[in-house]
């Protein structure tokens, strides 16, 4: 599976993501500088975590207007799979590729800890290696992960099964509405999520629960 990771000034989990993709897929992803106006043709584009542009103005706002993101939007429309994790999720909402917004955590503090995620929908390109209802472990590390959408948007997300992951067992770390941890676009080829599956993929991390996400995409592409 060919993949690309877009690098913005201030990205800092690009490295983790590259490692995870290589580890799970066996192919080293291409790293694309945010000023590049064209991305290579790949099966998966990833917007990694971090603090693009220092999280200044609004998280993800400045990165969302970079040249590379115009091409990401074009390719997403053409059906290429796009994954945004943490800051990547924020960038996707700022770019209008996903609805809603990520607000400051309810307790206003940065939070880094392990949470539980319920796989709400296992019939997506990003989750088919899991089972619906399965509860997985996954770390979070963010300051602005409090997902918000207006009632109509929310109803649509829920009604269409576009909530991919939910914080489970009382572990919602940020006050996110409906315990939402990750959502899909209407076509199902763009996923944004706050937790970091790339940080739970090898024995050193103390668990492998994050691998399923990448394996799902591999399986989808292969099919």
């Amino acid at each position, binding site marked *: 599976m060919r993949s690309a990771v877009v690098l913005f000034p201030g990205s800092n989990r690009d490295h983790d993501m590259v490692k995870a993709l290589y580890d799970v897929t066996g192919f080293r992803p291409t790293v694309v500088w945010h000023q590049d106006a064209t991305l290579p043709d790949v099966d998966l584009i990833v917007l990694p975590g971090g603090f693009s542009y220092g999280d200044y*103005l*609004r998280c993800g*706002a*400045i990165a969302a*207007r970079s040249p590379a993101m115009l091409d990401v939007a074009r390719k997403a429309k053409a059906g290429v799979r796009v994954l945004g994790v943490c800051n990547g999720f924020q960038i996707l909402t*700022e770019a*209008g590729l996903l*609805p*809603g*917004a990520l*607000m*400051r*955590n*309810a*307790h*206003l503090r940065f939070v880094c800890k392990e949470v539980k995620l319920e796989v709400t929908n296992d019939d997506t390109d990003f989750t088919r290696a899991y089972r619906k209802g399965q509860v997985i472990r996954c770390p979070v590390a963010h300051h602005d992960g*409090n997902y*918000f959408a*207006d009632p109509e948007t929310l109803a649509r997300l829920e009604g269409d099964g576009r909530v991919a992951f939910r914080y489970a067992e009382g572990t919602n770390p940020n*006050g996110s*509405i409906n315990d939402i941890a990750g959502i899909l676009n209407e076509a199902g080829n763009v996923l944004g999520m706050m937790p970091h599956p790339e940080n739970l993929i090898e024995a050193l991390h103390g668990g492998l629960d994050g691998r399923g996400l990448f394996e799902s995409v591999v399986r989808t592409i292969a099919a």
Partner: protein
Amino acid sequence: MQVRVTITLKAGVLDPQGKAIEGALRGLGFAGIDGARQGKIVDLALAETDPARARAAVAEMCEKLLANTVIENYDIDVLG
């Protein structure tokens, strides 16, 4: 030309910071607070000297970057 952009959250949009400020003020013993909402300002120094053109340029900046119009409103004050 100095221009001030004031960006506020739309009504109905969750405002964790406003809520926390409200709670903290209560915690400090301030009574009679019926609500707090936070927002931001961006003060711009522009080479433009015509107020109308300055306003138009800033409106475009707001639409393109400064405000997230899904959740935010903006106001532009040309301060001169």
